[in-house]
C-alpha cells in the first residue's frame, strides 16, 4: 500500500449527500478480476451521457459537460469534497479502488458509511471528517476560487487552507500508523500468530462444532 503523509492538491466539490457505492462505480465494472483500471469509470453514470460497459474505449464516449468532475478547473484534483454519508451501500472495495485510480488520495466530508470508510484506509486513501459547517465553508471557498488547493497533513492531523486556516481532524492511532508507513495489515496481524493459535485451541475446546 502506498503511504500517505502530506498532500497538497486541487479540491473537487461533489455537492451531494448519500453518494452510494453504486454511483461511485456501477456494478458492470465489478466483473473485473483486477484491482486497477477502475478510474475511467469512477462515477460512470454521472460522468458520461452514454452507457458504459467494461472493455469499451472510454475516450470515445460522450462526456457529460455538466458533471462537476468534467469541468476543466477540477482536472487533476486529488482531494474530493463531499457531503454526509458518503460511500453508503455495498461493501465493494472497487469504490476506493476507482477513486484512487482516478487520482483521489483524500476525501473530506461530514460523515461516511462504515464499510467504505474502513476500505479507504486499506487502500491508502485518507477519509477526513470535518464538521458540516466547515465543509460548507470549504464548498464556498472552492466555488469562489479556481484552482483552489488544500494541504492535508496526516502527521499533524490538519487540513490547511491557502489563507492560513487550519482544521484539525481525528484519526484512529493504528490506522494513522499504517497509513503513514504504508503498512500491510496482514503482515502486522501475522506477528501475532501465537495468540491466534492459542485462541483457536481454546475456542475449539469450548465449541467443537464450529470446527467440523
Amino acid at each position: 500500500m502506498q503511504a500517505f503523509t502530506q498532500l497538497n492538491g486541487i479540491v473537487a466539490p461533489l455537492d451531494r449527500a448519500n453518494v452510494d457505492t453504486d454511483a461511485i462505480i456501477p456494478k458492470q465494472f465489478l466483473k473485473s478480476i483486477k484491482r486497477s483500471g477502475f478510474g475511467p469509470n469512477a462515477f460512470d453514470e454521472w460522468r458520461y451521457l452514454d452507457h458504459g460497459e467494461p472493455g469499451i474505449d472510454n475516450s470515445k464516449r460522450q462526456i457529460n459537460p455538466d458533471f462537476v468532475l468534467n469541468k476543466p478547473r477540477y482536472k487533476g484534483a486529488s482531494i474530493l469534497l463531499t457531503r454526509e454519508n458518503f460511500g453508503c451501500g455495498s461493501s465493494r472495495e472497487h469504490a476506493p479502488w476507482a477513486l484512487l485510480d482516478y487520482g483521489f488520495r483524500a476525501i473530506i466530508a461530514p460523515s461516511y458509511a462504515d464499510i467504505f470508510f474502513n476500505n479507504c484506509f486499506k487502500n491508502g486513501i485518507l477519509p477526513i471528517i470535518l464538521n458540516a459547517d466547515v465543509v460548507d465553508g470549504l464548498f464556498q471557498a472552492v466555488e469562489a476560487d479556481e484552482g483552489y488547493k488544500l494541504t492535508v497533513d496526516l502527521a499533524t492531523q490538519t487540513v490547511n487552507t491557502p489563507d492560513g486556516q487550519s482544521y484539525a481532524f481525528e484519526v484512529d492511532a493504528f490506522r494513522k500508523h499504517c497509513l503513514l508507513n504504508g503498512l500491510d495489515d496482514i503482515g502486522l496481524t501475522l506477528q501475532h500468530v501465537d495468540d491466534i493459535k492459542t485462541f483457536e485451541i481454546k475456542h475449539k475446546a469450548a465449541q467443537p462444532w464450529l470446527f467440523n
Partner: protein
Amino acid sequence: MAKTLYDKLFDSHVVREENGTALLYIDRHLVHEVTSPQAFEGLKIAGRKLWRISSVLAVPDHNVPTTDRSQGIADPISRLQVETLDQNCVDFGVTEFKMNDKRQGIVHVIGPEQGATLPGMTVVCGDSHTSTHGAFGALAHGIGTSEVEHVMATQCLVQKKSKAMQILVEGELGRGVTAKDVALAVIGRIGTAGGTGYAIEFAGSAIRSLSMEGRMTLCNMAIEAGARAGMVGVDDITINYLKGRPYAPTEAQWDAAVVYWKTLHSDAGASFDAVVELKAEDIQPQVTWGTSPEMVTAINGRVPDPEQESDPTKRGGIERALQYMGLEANTPIEAINIDKVFIGSCTNSRIEDLRAAAMVAKGKRVASNVKLAMVVPGSGLVKAQAEQEGLDRIFLDAGFEWREPGCSMCLAMNADRLEPGERCASTSNRNFEGRQGQGGRTHLVSPEMAAAAAVAGHFVDVRTML
C-alpha cells in the same frame, strides 16, 4: 454485569486487543465471485495459504444467468469471473457450490439453509448484506476485499467494537404486514445513516414471533440503516430451524451447542447506547418512492412535496430523487403504475417469501401493462421446495416467469435488468440510481406487495386482496 448479545458475541471472539482495536477471530467465511478474485490473487502473490480451509464456503451468485444454464454463461466477462472463482477454489481447496449444483444460490440464502451459519459464530463475507446471518444470534457483517484476504490469511479481522442499538418492536403485526415492512419503517424512522457506528439488535414481541425467514429479511436490511451488523437473540424458533441442516452439529455436539446457544440473548437490564421503539400496530405496508431506502412511505401515503422540506440539502435530495424517479410531488402511491416486477434477492427469496407472493398471485393474472414479472428463488433448494409445493405453477399460470437462483435483477450484473425509465416493484434492498439497470426506477416492497402490484399493474394495498 448484564451484557448485550453484541457484547457476548464480540467479547467471546477477541484474540487480542490494543488501544481499543481488537483482533477478532472469524468462524465462518462465505465467499462469492465478485469480491474474492483480488483477495485470492493477493494471497498467491504473497505466497500465503488459507488459515483454516474448512471455515470457507464459496458460491457464485451475482453473475450467474437465471435462464437456462446448460450453455454456460454467455457474457465472457461474467464467465471469466465465475471461472476464476472455480479455479481459485480448486487451487486453495475450498468447498464451492458451483453454478449447476442444486445447492447453489445467493450466498446469504445458502449459508443459513446449509446450517453453515450457526448461533454464536462470527460470520464474514465480502458483501454488505452479510448482516443477514445475524438473525441466528451470530455476529455477521460485510467486509471489503482487503479484509477478505486478511481473513483468509489470518482467520482474523481487525475490528473496533461498535456501539449497541436496540430496536424494539412490541405488539402484533397486522395481516399483510411483513418483516420487510418493519425494516423499511425502521429505515424511514432512523434514516440510512441512523445505524452508522452501531450494531443493531432487533427485539420485542413482534420480532420474537417472526419466523427465521422474517428475521433474516430484517437483519439483511440493517446495512441499509447504516449498521454493519444486525442481530436477533436465539430462541426455539432459531434452534428448530437449524436442526438437521447439513452443516449443523449432531448428537452430543448438538445438545451441547443448544445449551450454549440458549445463552445468546441480551441479559435483562443490559444497557444499549441507543434504543428505538416502534409499535407493531402502527406499521403499514411500505413502498419506497425515491433513490434511497429511507425515502419510504406507507401504501396509503403520497409522494412527498419538496416544498415542504426546510433543510436545503434534504430538499435538493428529494427534488433530484423525484426527477430521477419520474414522479410528481403529492401523487398517491397507489396511483403509480409499474412496468416490471422482481421477486427475489437475499432480502426476500426464501420459501416463505415465495409462498406469501404465490398466495396473492393465485388464480389471478399479471396486469397487461406489466412487461415482465419474474420470480427468482434464492437457491436451488428453495426452488425445488417451491416446485414440490406447486408454487411454480401458481406463478406461471398467473403470467410470472420462474427462474434459476441468483442475485439477478437485485443489482443487474447478469442479463436481468431494467431499461432506462422502466419502473419496477422489487423485493430487493436498494433503490439507488441505476441499481437495477441504468435509468431504472426501483420501488422496494415486500413479496406480498410486489405480487399485488403485478396483478393490479400499480401499487395497491395488499390487505385489500387477502
